[in-house]
């Protein structure tokens, strides 16, 4: 038996952003940057490990909104155009740096090569559907793929509306089944948002496990035996895997985590902001909106705007050191825990997938080295998925109730319910109530009214996404987030108003269906509380 089990769980999620009505849309870049900088490099890393016969187990949650966007021909075509622009920019940058800034030439060449590799992988290897790459790794036994709530709603703020919570879970599971051909065993709780009783709905949909925030065990009303270092079974048998805050913080902490090392690449210095407008204009957004291009040449250096050029060789040394340090810390902590627990500890390490590669440029190389080191020390460290852990060690787990919690600031719901976003719930809750009313009054409609009601259900679900209140709280793209929440609710009201008059706004419906291609087989009766 290994001394320590380690379960990496990556949450790959982006809100549904798709605007074919515009030639280019700024917020669609969230998806393209994630594919380019995180998802494709992650797949390359996994495939290289597999080719090198390095054993590994990883868990990845792919949200239904992300899966929908990754398989949408409109966005797929736009990603190809995005990558082609990156290549064009890279070729110009190699020339420019060669002539004017040779200290940046190596990185310009690196980015250009990565963009070309990305485009080649995307078009030739995955035929524009990168989900096939994840599926193949699942089939080969390296990944456990799991789902999450339909639109990644923060569920503790909807406890008054069990039909809405059920709809989020049921559609999350259905969407996974449609995409991957089997039911998921695990369910990523959006933002680690848990409230007592949520497991009942998860069990109803065949879910065996979910992850929770670190403090969910110490704050449990029960005397949890092993803290965050073994999962517990909820009273209904579904397993809860608490996140190890200390282990996660080695990476996650924005003050002391590995990504803050001064040798690593500075995320916020990008030629999209640094170079003259006439040069960079074709690669940013209309009208002259400077954005990140991905071409970044500076190292973090320190808390100063005087940055030094990024040295890839130096950063790679730090990656090796940080990977070793991570393994060292796990082993050291594991020894302490084994003595204290008299059982092998499990470290559940949960992160957003986009942290690796996109935010932390060197993060994927770090993961690669951690996995390789773990493989070398397989007697002491065993990478597992939660399902595998349950199969090995699932009997005899303690039964206990996790506490209400999230991984957000303060550990509860304050991020998604504060002065910046509390106003949304008045409207979203009302839309849910009205959707329930429509589902009861007009149950089992067919043809046009069925489509109209299905669209209403989509609008409610899209308004519930946790991304909008988070962005409002975080004050990043607040105008867009506010518009999205309002638009979905206003659109819902179109259906409600028309159905109350027994009418269908056909023109609106057709346009709405064209825009929101998500959940194409949704059944609005899912909102019927009597169902």
């Amino acid at each position, binding site marked *: 038996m290994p001394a320590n089990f380690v379960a990496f769980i990556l949450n790959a999620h982006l809100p549904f952003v798709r605007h*074919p*009505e515009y030639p280019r849309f700024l917020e669609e870049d969230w998806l393209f940057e994630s594919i380019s900088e995180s998802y494709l490099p992650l797949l390359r890393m996994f495939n290289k490990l597999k080719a090198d016969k390095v054993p590994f187990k990883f868990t990845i949650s792919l949200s239904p909104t992300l899966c929908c966007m990754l398989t949408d021909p409109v966005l797929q075509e736009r990603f190809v155009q995005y990558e082609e622009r990156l290549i064009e920019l890279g070729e110009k940058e190699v020339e420019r740096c060669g002539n004017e800034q040779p200290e940046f030439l190596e990185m310009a060449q690196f980015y250009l090569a990565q963009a070309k590799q990305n485009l080649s992988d995307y078009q030739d290897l995955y035929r524009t559907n990168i989900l096939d790459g994840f599926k193949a790794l699942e089939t080969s036994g390296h990944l456990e793929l799991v789902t999450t709530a339909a639109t990644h709603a923060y569920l*503790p703020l909807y*406890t*008054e509306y069990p039909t809405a919570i059920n709809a989020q879970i049921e559609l999350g599971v259905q969407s996974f089944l449609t995409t991957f051909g089997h039911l998921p065993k695990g369910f990523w709780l959006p933002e680690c948002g848990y409230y*007592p009783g949520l497991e009942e709905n998860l069990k109803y949909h065949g879910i065996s496990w979910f992850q929770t925030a*670190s*403090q969910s*065990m*110490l*704050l*449990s*009303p*029960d005397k*949890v*035996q092993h*803290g*965050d*270092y073994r999962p517990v079974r909820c009273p209904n048998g579904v397993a809860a895997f608490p996140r*190890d*805050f*200390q*282990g996660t*913080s*080695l990476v996650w*902490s924005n*003050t*002391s985590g590995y990504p803050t090392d001064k040798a690593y690449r500075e995320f916020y210095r990008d030629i999209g902001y640094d170079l003259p407008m006439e040069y960079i204009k074709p690669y940013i957004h209309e009208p002259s909106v400077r954005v990140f291009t991905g071409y970044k040449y500076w190292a973090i250096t320190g808390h100063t705007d005087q940055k030094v050029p990024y040295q890839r060789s130096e950063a790679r040394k730090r990656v090796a050191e940080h990977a070793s340090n991570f393994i060292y810390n796990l082993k050291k*902590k594991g020894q*302490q*825990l084994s*003595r*204290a*627990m008299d059982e092998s500890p499990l470290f559940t390490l949960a992160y957003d997938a986009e942290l690796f590669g996109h935010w932390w440029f060197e993060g994927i190389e770090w993961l690669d080295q951690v996995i390789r080191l773990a493989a070398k020390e397989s007697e002491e460290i065993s990478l597992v998925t939660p399902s595998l852990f349950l199969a090995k060690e699932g009997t005899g787990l303690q039964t206990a109730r996790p506490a*209400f919690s999230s991984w957000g*600031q*303060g*550990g*509860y*719901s304050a991020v998604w*319910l504060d002065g910046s976003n*509390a106003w949304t*719930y*008045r409207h979203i809750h009302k839309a849910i109530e009205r959707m329930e009313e429509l589902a009861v009054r007009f149950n089992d409609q067919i*043809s*046009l009214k069925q489509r109209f009601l299905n669209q209403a259900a989509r609008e409610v679900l899209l308004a519930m996404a946790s991304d909008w209140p988070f962005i409002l709280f975080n004050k990043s793209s607040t105008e867009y987030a506010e518009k999205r929440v*309002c*638009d979905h609710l*206003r*659109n819902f009201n*179109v259906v409600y108003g028309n159905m109350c*008059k*027994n009418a*269908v*706004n*056909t*023109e609106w419906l*057709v*346009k709405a269906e*064209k825009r929101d291609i998500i959940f194409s087989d949704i059944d609005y009766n899912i909102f019927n509380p009597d169902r």
Partner: protein
Amino acid sequence: MILINIDSLSTTELQYIAQQEGLATWQSLDREALIDALEEAFEDQDDEVPAALKGKINRNRYCNSLTDYRGTMQHINGLPGVEELPESYYDTSIHLLLRDPQWAYAYWSLSQSAMHTVFGEEGELDGSLFLRVQETVLDTSEIKTFDIAITGEDTQWNINLPNMGSSYLVDLCYRDHKGNEMSLAQSKSVETHPPYWQNNGEQLALDENLFAVHFSSLVTKEGEIVDNAVIRDIAQFLSKGVL
């Protein structure tokens, strides 16, 4: 591909499309006449369709042509029927959302009849509005209440929850000038549960292994405790005897 047969549309829907298509006489036409008029209108549009596509067009594509005809550049929210969100939904209700074990957020609205009751015919508050917070201690079922005065303009409030291990609900209440009180709406309840270790912290303080397993995971290597007020309280308790 959107497959809509014009015969499957209700008369109301046909009237709406006819109105959108600019048929001046749409209100006076019966169902049959509406279908004929719309077919004629779409046949005219079909003349603008390239000959190669004409063979593919049939009666199943009316709604589709409606969209294509208008182009995809038109923003969906500029369409007729899409209106701004109302400030209030004018029903009488109050909702309580648990933000954390110490605070809940309440929002409410009043229907027209409730507004009439509260504000009277002249529209001036005839008494006072207040929130009555009811706490039920889960272990003992003991009930306590406290009131929060609000004004007619208020529609939301952050409510302090004094104790963990209790269930809370809120009544939106009105008190008339004679002192008579009535509940206009009641929220659903929210519950908070005290952590086991909050009342048994001495076990953690006295047992090194317990402490290592339960508390060390919540502290970074640099000594930063996970961001949580209750855990900070427990840490504060522990620091008196151990740290």
